[in-house]
């Protein structure tokens, strides 16, 4: 009688961690497409202008929608501005968090760090643990037992995904971790990637986050209104749905345990509005392959690399036409995954040449 294979252990402290190391998948060399060094250098150039413009516009939209939400509070009309405010707060903060984490959004370092701290709070990700988590994600992208940011382990947890539309899976987990950090402790997984020297910062920031949340709750109690929480705190939940819609396109349903970002990341074409909301993270293969390239240059990088890339997805719908059936099939067959078709120009892994000048 055939029996279904046991689900893999996605924890960072289980047997898959050792297995990844033994298979040469940890801290490995990854495939990179050829691009002349001089062109890559042009694309890596940092600028303050685009991110200042885009961040000021983001703040303006938050202030406008939040103000209209406050003015219409107590009427049904308040739903519309708060829907917009929530997405700007709870979903757009994800891409701002991401780009400033890499310190590529701005040329000026403190601007990246300031935006990172703000966006971390808004997207409900503690800034220090998540910096290290994301560092590991880039080292070992979708390597089981190594990558702490695999969004859809197999078989997929559909209830969990549904809850994630409003951060009802990750949100409580983040608050549990925050509580642990407030008391000066880490989870066993976090202890594998957060250095000792960084841990005091984890505990300090968790206490700051807690103080802010307590202040907002106290304001809500004092004013006998949910309005303060609708502006700070709740949007990380009710506005998170677009984060999931965007985020699942990055890796869901693609290969695990491969050393080629073209096989485990998606590049999805999007219109200018969505690209603004997502800060060009739709060029996800390009971002993983060359994370020094700022968001505003990823479209140009895509043009340089696309001959050596799988065909991009022509929109969110095209991506989900692949993702949804794949996840449904993985519920019964966890080994199944999308196999991206590589162009004939692809070189063998481990044959990365020195880039031409």
């Amino acid at each position, binding site marked *: 009688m055939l029996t279904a294979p046991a689900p893999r252990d996605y924890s960072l402290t289980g047997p898959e961690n050792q297995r990844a190391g033994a298979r040469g998948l940890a801290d490995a060399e990854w495939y990179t497409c050829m691009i002349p060094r001089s062109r890559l250098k042009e694309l890596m150039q*940092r600028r303050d202008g685009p991110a200042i413009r885009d961040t000021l516009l983001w703040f303006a939209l938050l202030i406008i929608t939040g103000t209209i939400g406050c003015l219409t509070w107590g009427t049904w009309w308040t739903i519309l501005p708060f829907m917009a405010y929530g997405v700007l707060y709870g979903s757009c903060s994800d891409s701002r968090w991401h780009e400033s984490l890499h310190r*590529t959004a701005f*040329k000026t370092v403190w601007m990246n760090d300031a935006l990172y701290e703000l966006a971390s709070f808004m997207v409900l990700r503690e800034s*220090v643990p998540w*910096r290290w988590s994301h*560092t590991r994600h880039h080292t070992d992208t979708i390597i089981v037992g190594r990558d702490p940011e695999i969004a859809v382990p197999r078989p997929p947890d559909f209830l969990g995904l549904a809850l994630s539309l409003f951060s009802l899976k990750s949100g409580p987990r983040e608050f549990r971790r925050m509580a642990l950090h407030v008391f000066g402790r880490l989870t066993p997984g976090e202890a594998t990637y957060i250095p000792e020297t*960084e841990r005091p910062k984890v505990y300090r920031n968790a206490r700051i986050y807690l103080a802010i949340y307590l202040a907002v709750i106290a304001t809500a109690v004092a004013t006998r209104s949910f309005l303060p929480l609708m502006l700070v705190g709740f949007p990380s939940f009710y506005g998170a749905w677009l984060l999931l819609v965007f985020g699942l396109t990055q890796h869901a349903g693609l290969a695990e345990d491969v050393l080629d970002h073209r096989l485990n990341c998606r590049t999805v074409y999007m219109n200018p509005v969505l690209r603004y909301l997502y800060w060009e993270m739709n060029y996800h293969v390009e971002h993983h392959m060359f*994370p*020094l390239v700022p968001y505003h240059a990823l479209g140009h990088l895509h043009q340089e690399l696309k001959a050596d890339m799988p065909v991009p997805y022509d929109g969110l719908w095209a991506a989900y036409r692949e993702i949804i059936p794949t996840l449904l099939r993985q519920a019964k067959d966890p080994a199944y995954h999308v196999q991206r078709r590589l162009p004939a120009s692809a070189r063998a892994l481990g044959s990365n040449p020195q880039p031409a000048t």
Partner: protein
Amino acid sequence: MADTWIDTVNAADIAREDVLRFDLGERTFALYRTTDDRYYATDGLCTHAKVHLAGGFVLDQVIECPKHNGRFNFTTGQAMGAPVCVNLKTYPTKVEAGRLWVNIAPAA
């Protein structure tokens, strides 16, 4: 005492405000040229995840690792914050007859 100055590359082969990889046996180095034609040398691998820094980005006196965006001041080797916590080793350099020489012995 053995001569530890190593002839590496033509100084002009390194573009201004850029970095070049130089391998010597098992060792690997990163060679830098600033916008005002000063030359520096450090160990070639990032102290965080052993990635070749020569694929990274040079801005002023800072090299940014191509994998995780860790940043070092390549003139001093100083690690400039997470995710890099350990300084880079630096090596003295000199340019003679258009060649860049690196003293690989007294790593700082």
